[in-house]
Every structure is written in structure tokens, then in C-alpha cells.
């Protein structure tokens, strides 16, 4: 138990030192976070930090003392000792003991972090280039979460808002005081899901599932980012968690499911070409423009142009197929689960009629939703 006290004292000191700067706009230290685990991590961090400071003071102290006193210009004569096994053994043993002291609380915290059993809520998190998909496994609800910072702010054509690059179109809503298990995986490359306030950072590996868990103490908005280089827009796939009370969470679940049904229903009505083009442009800019560029010209060698391309001006079936199912072995994703039927129809229509691709034909949402039926909702999972 002595160990625990040291940690508390150490972190107390740390908090005191950083309390002043924590008020400022920028921070210079880790966040203590809002979970039990994140606070243990913070305490560990501060303990080790102060141990390092103490060792540094001693070592650098001796060094600078020597630099000052044992300089030739002050007439220092070199002594002729160059070995002392006893001293060497002592200064090997002491660090070893300090390390053992660090390893004990570190092991305890790590074991705690790995125990994801008995969770009340499972959320599957899938990384995509460059967005996150959240699937509330037992609640028949899933959606994508994209960066919502407008492009004008990124290209410096508009003033940047407070949460520049840290805002998304749909929050991951989670209940407080609930053990939540995250099941992390990826659709393409390795991503890493990181929310500092929860002290959760886990890689999303394609084809494998990693587990992590959390119990959030306080309602609030907690922001994070992808932490593993995942290609061009790695810096543009933030995470926003909205922690709400358990009751509010149930209410939110019900609302979100109702919304989802409304979108599915919208595919059944008839859409005009103009309507499709309008929505198509929005979808295109959100989902396609990162690679194929807003002008449809692509990046030679990396991402093919759509403007005047064989697919976007040829057989419609082939076009629909590549958008729905992607092209394996390339960066072209399957969008069948990412977009609704009407969004898919709109974006395909847009691609066939924009930038001088003037086929004049519209793809109807109904047509797409018939294609989606067999595997909708990823029934096989």
C-alpha cells in the first residue's frame, strides 16, 4: 500500500504544477480523463514523470557541478581513478529497484485495462478510409461518422471554428455509468481509435477484432482522433463521443432507429434528375471527393479520374457494381453499407452527369434498393 501513497503524492504534485496551465487555452499535460482507468493512467504518468525529474536532477547536478568545478581553467588537475565496482553495482541496483517500483502499479493498471468481461453494451467500431462506422450490436443500429468541418475552413477560406477538425456529423452516443465494450476492426488499412479522456487507444486491424472497454463517469462531449497513419486523410477522421445519462441514451436509441426507417422509406418515392443531382453532389463531396477530387479528375497513378472515364460514361450496371461493391485489391471501397439507397442512386447519377459526363440518365433509388436487399444490414455478421 506504500506504493499507492507515493502515486497519490506524486500525482498531487503534478496536478498542482499543471493546474495553472490547465486553465489556459492550450494544455501541456495529459488529461486525467473521465474514467477510473484514465485516472490510474494519469497517476502512473505523473509518478514516472517525477521519478525521471528526480533522477535527472541528481545526474545532471553532478555533471554540472563537475563542469563547473573540475575545469582546467580553474586549475583542476585530473585525478586518476577509472573504476570502482562497488559504486557501479550500487548505481545499477538502485535503478533496478526503481524500475520494479514502477512495474508493480503499471502491471496492475494493465491487467485492469484488459478485462473487458461483463460489459452491458457492445459497440462495434469499424475504421474506414477516412471515417468511422459505429454499430450498436444488440440494438439494430449502425451509422457512419464523418468529419464535418467544412472544406473552406481547412483551405483557409473561412474562419476556423472552436472545434476545428474535431467535429463530426454524427456523434457516438454512449451512456454513462455503464460498462461498454468496444469491438474494433477495420474495413481497409489499420486505423487506431483514440479518445484521450477515456485512455482508450486500440488499433483497428482489418480482418481481426480488438477489444477495449470503458465506464464513463460524467456526461459530456469527448473528442479524439485516429492515431495510426491510414493514408491521405488520416488527419481528418476525428471521433466525438457524447456521453449521456442512461435514460437519455434509451431515448436516443429509439429516435435514431426511427430516423433510420424514414431514410429507407425515402428510397421508395420517385426522384427527379435535378433532385438526384443536388443530393448527389453533396454525397460526392463527402464520400468520393477525397480521392477522385471535387473536379472528378482523380490523382494519376493513385486514384483514377471519373471525368470521361469508361465506367462513369459506360454501362450503368458496371458503374453501380463498382460503387456498391468496390474493387478488391484497390482503395475503392464498397459503399453498399455506407450510404443509403437514395444516396447511392444520387451519387451515381451525379457521376454520370457532372463534369461533362452528360449521359442524361438517372439511376433511381428504388433500383438500388432492390440490389441492396440480399445482404442489407450485414445479416451474415
Amino acid at each position: 500500500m506504500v506504493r499507492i501513497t507515493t502515486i497519490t503524492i506524486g500525482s498531487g504534485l503534478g496536478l498542482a504544477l499543471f493546474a495553472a496551465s490547465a486553465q489556459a487555452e492550450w494544455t501541456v499535460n495529459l488529461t486525467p480523463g473521465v474514467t477510473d482507468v484514465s485516472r490510474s493512467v494519469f497517476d502512473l504518468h505523473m509518478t514516472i514523470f517525477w521519478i525521471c525529474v528526480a533522477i535527472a536532477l541528481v545526474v545532471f547536478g553532478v555533471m554540472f557541478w563537475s563542469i563547473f568545478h573540475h575545469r582546467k581553467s580553474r586549475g583542476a588537475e585530473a585525478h586518476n581513478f577509472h573504476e570502482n565496482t562497488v559504486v557501479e553495482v550500487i548505481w545499477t541496483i538502485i535503478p533496478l529497484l526503481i524500475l520494479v517500483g514502477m512495474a508493480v502499479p503499471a502491471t496492475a493498471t494493465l491487467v485492469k485495462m484488459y478485462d473487458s468481461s461483463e460489459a452491458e453494451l457492445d459497440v462495434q467500431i469499424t475504421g474506414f478510409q477516412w471515417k468511422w462506422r459505429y454499430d450498436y450490436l444488440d440494438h439494430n443500429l449502425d451509422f457512419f461518422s464523418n468529419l464535418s468541418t467544412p472544406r473552406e475552413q481547412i483551405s483557409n477560406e473561412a474562419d476556423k471554428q472552436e472545434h476545428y477538425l474535431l467535429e463530426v456529423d454524427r456523434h457516438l452516443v454512449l451512456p454513462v455509468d455503464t460498462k461498454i465494450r468496444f469491438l474494433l476492426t477495420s474495413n481497409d488499412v489499420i486505423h487506431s481509435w483514440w479518445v484521450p479522456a477515456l485512455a482508450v487507444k486500440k488499433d483497428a486491424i482489418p480482418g481481426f477484432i480488438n477489444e477495449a472497454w470503458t465506464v464513463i463517469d460524467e456526461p459530456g462531449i469527448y473528442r479524439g482522433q485516429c492515431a495510426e497513419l491510414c493514408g491521405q486523410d488520416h488527419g481528418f477522421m476525428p471521433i466525438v463521443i457524447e456521453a449521456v445519462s442512461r435514460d437519455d441514451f434509451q431515448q436516443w436509441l429509439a429516435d435514431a432507429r426511427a430516423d433510420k426507417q424514414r431514410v429507407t422509406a425515402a428510397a421508395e418515392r420517385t426522384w427527379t434528375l435535378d433532385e438526384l443531382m443536388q443530393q448527389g453532389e453533396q454525397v460526392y463531396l463527402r464520400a468520393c471527393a477525397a480521392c477522385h477530387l471535387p473536379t472528378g479528375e482523380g490523382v494519376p497513378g493513385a486514384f483514377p479520374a471519373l471525368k470521361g472515364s469508361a465506367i462513369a460514361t459506360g454501362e450503368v450496371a458496371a458503374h453501380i457494381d463498382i460503387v456498391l461493391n468496390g474493387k478488391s485489391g484497390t482503395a475503392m471501397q464498397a459503399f453498399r453499407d455506407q450510404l443509403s439507397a437514395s444516396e447511392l442512386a444520387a451519387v451515381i447519377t451525379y457521376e454520370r452527369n457532372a463534369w461533362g459526363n452528360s449521359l442524361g440518365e438517372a439511376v433511381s433509388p428504388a433500383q438500388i434498393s432492390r440490389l441492396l436487399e440480399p445482404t442489407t444490414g450485414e445479416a451474415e455478421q
Partner: protein
Amino acid sequence: MSDKPTLWQTLLSVLSSFFGVQSERNRERDFHGGHPVHYILTGLLMAALFVIAVILLVRWALSLAGA
């Protein structure tokens, strides 16, 4: 010459190389009398033992933590 290191001395020397501290006297003995192959073999063996020791440590820590 009688300064050939014994098996025990070889073990100790390799151990001290893991530790990172060695006295001048022992080093002289090792490099004068010792055969490099003995040290390499002992080193490999000790490295394996070291790995096993850390694994045992991990198991022990896990059993303490009840995981």
C-alpha cells in the same frame, strides 16, 4: 596458465554482461584465458534463461492479479 576461467566464472561473467557491470580484473581474466566460443554458448543459454525468467515473472504477475 591457471587463469583459465572456470565454468562458474564464465557464468558470472556472462551474467555481469547482462547486468552491464564488470570489474577490470575479471575482464582481464576473461579476455586472456577465456575462449570466445564458451562465452557465446553461455551467452545464448543465459539469454534463453533470461527469456524464460521474464515469462515466469509475467505468469506470476498475472496469477497475482487474478487475470
